[in-house]
């Protein structure tokens, strides 16, 4: 280990034992940390040099097992991968180390990941296919076809994306980015035959793909850079490709953009809400519509702005469209 530039840092370390403690507390620990040391080195030293009762998960130390994920100043980190000096550059010389989810702590950094695993397992994250037990030739998958899986196969189930997802945080039914990314991984596998079952499992409003808030927190949090939100977008597209998109408010909202752009180039915001919600659904937005109207925030149909050269846009919509939705 290279330790030539040691720096004195202050760590605030989350401590809680669910069997004995009523409330958590933070231990303040000063430590000299050298360049090249990762967060896991700090966790080890807290246990070995300061308090042997400190608990955390660790195993491979090589960014493969996904055990040692914690949060540092709110940022999801994989302790064996993230260097302390990078975190100091970002947050300064006082760092707060916390578990991935403070509400699920068993002891210190160790959390109960049951919610993560049950959602992950619910999408059947394995190859579903009839296997010929006595094959007479190899099943060759070409590199081009294998590439369709993209980096989705790199997931190490660390939970960083899941426990950074704000939608999961306020809606416990939402499957979250890890389960959805692995759904894509198997759906994109040519050997698999479970695509439609999986799309069925992730298609409901309240728990599935339509509840992603598009914040990109998962893309930032993933230590393997597998872009979970990119995979969620592809799942959205798959529901249209497989003709499985339901005729619901979220689907009509997505489709409605094309419909509105074709009419005006720009979006007709009021019409889009009506198109998405339907005639009765739109009624619940009346209080906001009145407030907006009073403040000159609603454009009347006859004043609706249109893009210049609208004919170009309409021509491109005809020629570049690739997706269909039969609902509307």
């Amino acid at each position, binding site marked *: 280990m290279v330790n030539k530039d040691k720096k004195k840092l202050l760590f605030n370390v989350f401590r809680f034992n669910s069997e004995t403690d009523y409330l958590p507390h933070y231990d303040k620990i000063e430590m000299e940390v050298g360049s090249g040391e990762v967060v896991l080195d700090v966790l080890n030293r807290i246990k070995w040099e300061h308090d042997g009762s400190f608990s955390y998960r660790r195993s491979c130390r090589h960014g493969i097992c996904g055990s040692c994920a914690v949060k540092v100043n709110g940022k999801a980190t994989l302790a064996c991968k993230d260097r302390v000096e990078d975190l100091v550059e970002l947050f300064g010389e006082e760092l707060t180390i916390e578990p991935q989810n403070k509400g699920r702590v068993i002891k210190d950094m160790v959390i109960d990941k049951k919610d993560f695993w049950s959602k992950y397992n619910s999408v059947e994250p394995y190859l579903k296919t009839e296997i010929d037990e006595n094959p007479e030739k190899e099943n060759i998958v070409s590199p081009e076809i294998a590439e369709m899986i993209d980096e989705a196969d790199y997931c190490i189930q660390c939970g960083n994306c899941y426990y950074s997802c*704000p939608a999961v945080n306020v809606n416990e039914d939402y499957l979250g980015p890890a389960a959805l990314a692995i759904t894509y991984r198997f759906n994109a596998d040519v050997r698999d035959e479970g695509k439609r079952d999986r799309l069925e499992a992730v298609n409901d409003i309240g728990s599935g793909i339509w509840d992603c808030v598009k914040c990109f927190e998962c893309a930032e949090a993933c230590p393997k850079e597998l872009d979970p939100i990119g995979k969620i977008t592809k799942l959205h597209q798959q529901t249209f490709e497989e003709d499985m998109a339901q005729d619901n408010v979220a689907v009509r909202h997505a489709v409605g953009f094309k419909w509105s752009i074709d009419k005006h180039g720009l979006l007709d915001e009021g019409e889009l809400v009506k198109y998405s919600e339907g005639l009765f659904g739109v009624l619940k937005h009346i209080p906001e519509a009145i407030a907006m109207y009073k403040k000159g925030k609603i454009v009347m149909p006859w004043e609706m702005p249109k893009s210049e050269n609208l004919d170009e846009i309409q021509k491109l919509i005809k020629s570049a469209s690739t997706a269909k939705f039969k609902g509307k």
Partner: protein
Amino acid sequence: MAKLKYALYTGCTARESTPELLKSTMAIAEALDIELVLLDEASCCGASHLQDFDDMLSLTLNARNICYAEKLGLTMVTICNTCQLNTAMTKERLDNSGELKEKVNEKLKEVGLEYKGTSDVKHFLYALVDDLGLEEISKKVVKPLSDLQIAAYYGCHNIRPSHLQQKSNGGENPYTPNSIDKLIVALGAKNVEYEHKNKCCGFHVELQAPKTANRLSGNAMLDAIDNGAETIVTPCPLCHLRMDIQQHNITKEMGREIDIPILHLPQMVGLALGIEPDKLGLNHNIADVTFV
């Protein structure tokens, strides 16, 4: 310094539900001697929803928008975080894949256009803080916003995904963004530090998951309020729509009264530059802004 000149992609909301954003943008550009050429040919960016339905179509339409900035030989500036995301994402994908670029250009050729990749795309916020500079802006402050405690609310799509935005946002870190905070200080006000400044407002699931949207906005707004914010400022009209128009619904969901003025970034700048409230469209704001 040579006069700054950009092609302005307004997006849809600035022409419809947030007219105050376009008004205040044009007003401060004039006051700061920045020339903005309106891209009236541009269409909607798809707001990341069209992208869920038809990837090829959204790429083609966004590439077409950029073509018009390229024709002018100007950097495109956006005034909506989500326009910024979808335009920058299109640009990144086309610039990194000759095959995709060719495919999109085949379509664009049908309407006499070609995407070349010669125009950069950045949010107007970063044209202000990085290109013009805070020093230039503070020189023109005539009504410092002293005594005002302002919480910067960054929105997602200007700062994430970081690999995409850092080329155009001065390397702003998504975990510790500070450009708007520095701008607030340059305008003479006090910036409010709070945890939720880089979190999501939930706008994109407002229709199908209003509870999620209200909780996310509510958590952020209450965090700002509890840390002393007298107003919240945002560079994104979608965050603004959520926080300004939905305060009664957010109040209901959070079980706590929320009543706080929400300013668009150029409205805040305009106030410090001494521009009259009407020219900044403050009459369009729903949450009471009479404190200014």
